[in-house]
């Protein structure tokens, strides 16, 4: 014990140990402060299916235009009406969309509620519209657009 008291070399090592200790404590306090900020606000942005819903509506708008062109083409090569062709194409599209989103645990239903493509065949310059009911649900968020009115031109 006497040796321990008299031997005072290595003091800088002990001092640096203290300094490190205190700086670590300060860092721990800082980390604890950040633990309680910004969880809910960032989580809400991540969880809310804004992009999914946007994708569904914009994809449906785009696809409706393509389907119009296709239905018109099919009408010229077969004797089925434009409306009938359109319904067939839309059914396929609806099934594919439902399947794609079901893979992520989301429910999408698309429903062709009305369409006005009559002027398409006669080439009169009327506005052709498709009315689609879109619903989306992921358990937390429910979206329905009834109807989404989509303007299509040949």
């Amino acid at each position, binding site marked *: 014990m006497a040796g321990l008291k008299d031997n005072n070399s290595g003091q800088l090592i002990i001092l640096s140990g203290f300094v490190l200790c205190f700086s670590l404590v300060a860092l721990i306090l800082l980390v604890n402060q950040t633990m309680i900020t910004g969880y809910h*606000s960032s989580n809400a942005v991540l969880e809310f299916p804004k992009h999914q819903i946007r994708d569904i509506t914009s994809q449906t708008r785009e696809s409706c235009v393509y389907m119009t062109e296709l239905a018109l083409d099919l009408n010229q090569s077969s004797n089925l009406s434009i409306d009938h062709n359109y319904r067939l194409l839309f059914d396929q599209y609806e099934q594919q969309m439902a399947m794609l989103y079901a893979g992520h645990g989301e429910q999408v239903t698309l429903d062709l509620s009305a369409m006005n493509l009559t002027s398409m065949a006669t080439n009169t310059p009327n506005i052709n519209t498709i009315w689609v009911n879109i619903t989306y649900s992921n358990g937390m968020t429910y979206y329905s657009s009834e*109807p989404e009115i989509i303007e299509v031109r040949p």
Partner: protein
Amino acid sequence: MRNLFRDDAAVSVTMEYIIFSMLFISLFALLYVSFGDMMVNGPKETVIQNKFSDIGNMMTSLVTDMYLILPENGVIESDYMIPAKVGGESYTINANLAMTDQIFELVSSSGEETSVTISGIAITIPINGTVSSSDINHRISYDSRK
């Protein structure tokens, strides 16, 4: 007896004892009075303020996100989850001032209050309602037909 008065060898020890005990007793009394504020209420207030601004920002970003994708004709409903208690207290989220002041208000049961701005959305769509943190369901809903 004369010897007892002449002998002052232990006086300073006694005085030291008295002075130190007085110091410590007064220090302890001070601590006892302010312990609750220092150790409980102060941190609780900090936690409540932080959490309230966090939850308030969640509400405003939810409303903003919903506002961005509102259907022209239709419905959008979103459930959200918030902690039932913050700092051991239940609280209410109040959107009734949204129309006039463009804020959401979070008020705890002990009266702690935090407001967050909703950046002018209530000018274009009316926002109202209150919700308590202890409710089972929390939902924001929009219906274009109402």
